């Protein structure tokens, strides 16, 4: 068995933190949605904390995902393009890497929206509901695209043509 070293761990670790913090950001956005739906003076602070969690987790997903994308994805991309699912890169990754910025901007915007007293401001409440729901939906789409990309690499490794060029 080959013992893992920091060099071999940093790639998968950055990928797992990217996906994990993305999920946590989606869950926190769902929390904000629920807080805005049942906006009361008592839960206002919790909703604001959740909004900050959305922004922080999304920023972590951005940094870790970016590190992995720049340093480790090129090898996977080469495999995907030689495999039977090239669209995992040409369509899903291309959309994912750009749609992510939409979620990121909305995540940075959410703490600004929930600074208002949602329990007495209908317009702010509507905006918070809208922004948090958009983060949840776009985040789920991005997570789904990540799964397709991951499977694109997997099928490439078991594809005979890819095996010939990458033993």
């Amino acid at each position, binding site marked *: 068995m080959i013992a893992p070293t920091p060099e071999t761990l940093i790639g998968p670790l950055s990928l797992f933190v990217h996906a994990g913090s993305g999920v946590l950001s989606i869950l926190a956005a769902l929390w904000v949605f629920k807080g805005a739906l049942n906006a009361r003076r008592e839960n206002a602070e919790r909703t604001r904390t959740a909004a900050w969690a959305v922004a922080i987790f999304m920023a972590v997903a*951005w940094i870790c995902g*970016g590190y992995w*994308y*720049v340093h480790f994805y090129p090898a996977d991309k080469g495999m995907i393009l030689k495999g039977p699912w090239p669209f995992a890169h*040409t*369509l899903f990754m*291309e*959309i994912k*890497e*750009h*749609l992510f*910025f*939409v979620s*990121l*901007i*909305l995540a*940075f*915007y959410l703490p*600004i*929206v929930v*600074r*208002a007293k949602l329990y*007495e*401001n*209908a*317009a*702010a409440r*509507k*905006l918070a*509901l*809208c*922004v948090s729901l*958009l983060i949840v939906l*776009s985040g789920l*789409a991005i997570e789904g695209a990540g799964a397709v990309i991951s499977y694109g690499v997997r099928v490439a490794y078991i594809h005979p043509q890819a095996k010939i060029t990458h033993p």
Partner: protein
Amino acid sequence: MNTDTLTHTDTSSQVSRASAAFGWAAAITILFNLVLASAKDYYPPLNKAMAALTGHHWITHGLADVVLFFGLGLLLQRTPWAAKTAHLPAILVACVLAAAVGLLGWFWFF
């Protein structure tokens, strides 16, 4: 009175000036993101120039989006028209849908 709020927003029917300004900034940045993604894919020299700036086009793209969002947000806070927020949620939904459909269409067909 909260200085972050416009004089006519204490009726609770409007969001704060900061929320409105950064909402418009988010909408514009989301559309800018779509245009930049298509432009750098269509025009490789732009992609190369962006890569030369930070080492990777995606890093430059992300930083440009974030800088534009915060820069526009801070700028729009000083303009009175940013307070027009009645349709802001619908505009944000439309911009996100346009970005999603636009990216799908661009990378599917081109």
